[in-house]
C-alpha cells in the first residue's frame, strides 16, 4: 500500500483507497459545517435562530456536552498517572485523543458562538474573575494545552516520526513526566468542569438554574465535575466500542473495559444520589422561597414536562449506575453497552436542561414560555466537530500505535481489517 511505511509495525489496516473514500465522505459533512461556520462569522449570528430569550442555545449545549463526555480524558489520566491504575494504560491513549477532539471542538464552537470573534481575547485580557465564564475560558484553554501535551508522545510514536532521534527522545521524556501534566490537567479540569456548572448555578435571576452552594461555588459546580468524571469514561468506552465495530477488531482488553466500567458505575451512582438530593432541596426549599412551585418548570408548554426530569435522573442516571456496579450486568457486553449509552444520553440531557430549559422558563409572572428550533447553520456547525472527530480518530488509528493491546488481541492473520 502507499502508506505502509507510516502504519504501525505489524498492524493490519484497510486498503488506502478505501480509507481515502471514507475520509472523503466524512470530509463532505465537515465542509458543510465549515461553510455554515463562515456564514456565521461573516454575516453574523442572525444566521442562527437564537434570539433575546435564547442567548444561549444549541451551541452552548454542544459545548457543555462535549466537555462533559471529554471528561473521560482527565479522569482516566488521573487514575492512570496519579492513582497508578496501570491497567488503564491500554485505553489512556484513546481517552486522550477523544478528550483532545472534544476540547478542540468546544473551543471552536465558542469561537463561532461569540458575536465578536476578533475580540474573543478580551475574556483573557479584561478578565472578570467573578464570572464563571472567565474561569471556563481559562481552564478550558489551559487544559486543552495539557491534552495536546498528552497527545504529542502518541503522535511521536508514529513509525517514521519516531525514527528521528530527537522526537524519539522527546516522546520518551514526555512519558517520564506525564504524571505532572496529568495532575495539572486534573486540577484544571476540576475547575472548568465545575465552573461550567457554575455558569448556570450563579444566575440568581433564573430560579430554574439558581442553586445555593459552598462559598462562591453553587452545588451545580460540584455536580458538573462529578458527572463529567462519571460519564466521561462511558463515552470513552462507547467510542472504543464503535471503533471496534467499524474496524472489526478487538482493541481494548475486557479487563480494562470492565475496570473502567466499574469505576464509572460507582461514580455515576454516587453522582446521581447527590443529584437527587440537590434536586429535592432545590425543588422544595430554594424555588418555593422565590415563589415558584416545581410544576411551574414542567408545565404549560409544548415540550418540557416531568418526563425530561425522570429520563435524566432515573432512566439515564440510576439505571446505568446500577447496571455498571452490578458485576454480572457489567461483564455482560449487551447490558454494559446499554448502560454506557444510557449514561452518555443522561449527561447530555442534563447539560441540555441546564442550558436550554433555563432559557425557556418564564420568570416574570406575565411572561410566557419560549421554545426554539435551531437553524441549519447551527446544526451544521454542531455536527462539524463530530465529522472532524471521526477523521482524526481514523487517521490516528491508522498511523499511530493507539491501542497497545491491538496486536496481542488480534493474533495472526485476521481478515483484512476495515477502517
Amino acid at each position, binding site marked *: 500500500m502507499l502508506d505502509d511505511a507510516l502504519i504501525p509495525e505489524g498492524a493490519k489496516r484497510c486498503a488506502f483507497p478505501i480509507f481515502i473514500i471514507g475520509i472523503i465522505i466524512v470530509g463532505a459533512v465537515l465542509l458543510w459545517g465549515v461553510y455554515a461556520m463562515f456564514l456565521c462569522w461573516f454575516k453574523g449570528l442572525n444566521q442562527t435562530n437564537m434570539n433575546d430569550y435564547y442567548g444561549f442555545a444549541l451551541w452552548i449545549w454542544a459545548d457543555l456536552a462535549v466537555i462533559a463526555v471529554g471528561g473521560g480524558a482527565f479522569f482516566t489520566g488521573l487514575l492512570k498517572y496519579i492513582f497508578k491504575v496501570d491497567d488503564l494504560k491500554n485505553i489512556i491513549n484513546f481517552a486522550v485523543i477523544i478528550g483532545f477532539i472534544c476540547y478542540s471542538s468546544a473551543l471552536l464552537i465558542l469561537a463561532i458562538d461569540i458575536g465578536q470573534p476578533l475580540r474573543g481575547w478580551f475574556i483573557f*485580557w479584561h*478578565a472578570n474573575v467573578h464570572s464563571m465564564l472567565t474561569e471556563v475560558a481559562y481552564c478550558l484553554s*489551559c487544559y486543552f494545552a495539557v491534552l495536546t501535551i498528552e497527545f504529542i508522545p502518541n503522535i511521536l510514536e508514529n513509525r517514521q516520526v519516531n525514527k528521528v532521534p530527537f522526537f524519539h*527522545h522527546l516522546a520518551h521524556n514526555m512519558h517520564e513526566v506525564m504524571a505532572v501534566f496529568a495532575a*495539572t490537567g486534573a486540577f484544571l479540569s476540576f475547575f472548568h468542569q465545575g465552573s461550567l456548572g457554575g455558569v448556570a448555578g450563579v444566575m440568581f435571576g433564573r430560579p430554574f438554574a439558581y442553586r445555593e452552594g459552598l462559598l462562591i461555588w453553587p452545588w451545580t459546580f460540584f455536580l458538573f465535575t462529578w458527572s463529567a468524571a462519571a460519564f466521561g469514561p462511558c463515552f470513552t468506552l462507547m467510542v472504543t466500542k464503535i471503533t471496534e465495530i467499524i474496524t472489526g477488531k478487538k482493541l481494548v482488553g475486557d479487563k480494562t473495559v470492565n475496570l473502567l466500567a466499574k469505576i464509572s458505575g460507582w461514580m455515576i451512582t454516587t453522582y446521581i444520589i447527590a443529584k437527587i438530593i440537590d434536586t429535592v432541596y432545590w425543588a422544595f426549599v430554594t424555588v418555593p422561597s422565590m415563589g415558584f412551585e416545581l410544576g411551574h418548570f414542567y408545565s404549560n408548554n409544548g415540550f418540557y414536562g416531568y418526563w425530561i426530569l425522570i429520563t435524566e435522573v432515573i432512566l439515564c442516571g440510576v439505571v446505568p449506575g446500577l447496571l455498571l456496579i452490578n458485576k454480572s450486568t457489567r461483564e455482560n457486553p449487551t447490558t454494559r453497552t446499554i448502560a454506557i449509552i444510557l449514561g452518555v444520553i443522561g449527561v447530555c440531557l442534563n447539560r441540555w436542561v441546564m442550558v436550554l430549559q433555563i432559557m425557556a422558563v418564564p420568570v416574570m409572572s406575565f411572561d410566557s414560555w419560549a421554545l426554539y428550533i435551531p437553524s441549519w447553520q447551527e446544526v451544521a456547525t454542531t455536527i462539524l466537530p463530530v465529522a472532524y472527530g471521526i477523521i482524526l480518530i481514523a487517521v490516528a488509528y491508522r498511523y499511530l500505535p493507539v491501542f497497545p493491546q491491538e496486536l496481542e488481541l488480534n493474533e495472526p492473520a485476521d481478515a483484512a481489517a476495515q477502517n
Partner: protein
Amino acid sequence: MFPFCFEWVWDIGHAIFFGGFWYAISILGAGMTYCLLKAAYDTINDKGDSHH
C-alpha cells in the same frame, strides 16, 4: 490577566484565580522546557541508538 491590565486589582479574588492560573501555566511551561532540553541532550549524547 496581567497586573498592568485595566481590570487588575490586588484582591483575594485575583490572587486565587490568577495564582492558580499562573501556577498551572508555569508547571506546563517548565515541564515542556525540561522535556525539550532533555530530549536535545539525549539526541546529542547517544548518536542514533538509545540504549538504557
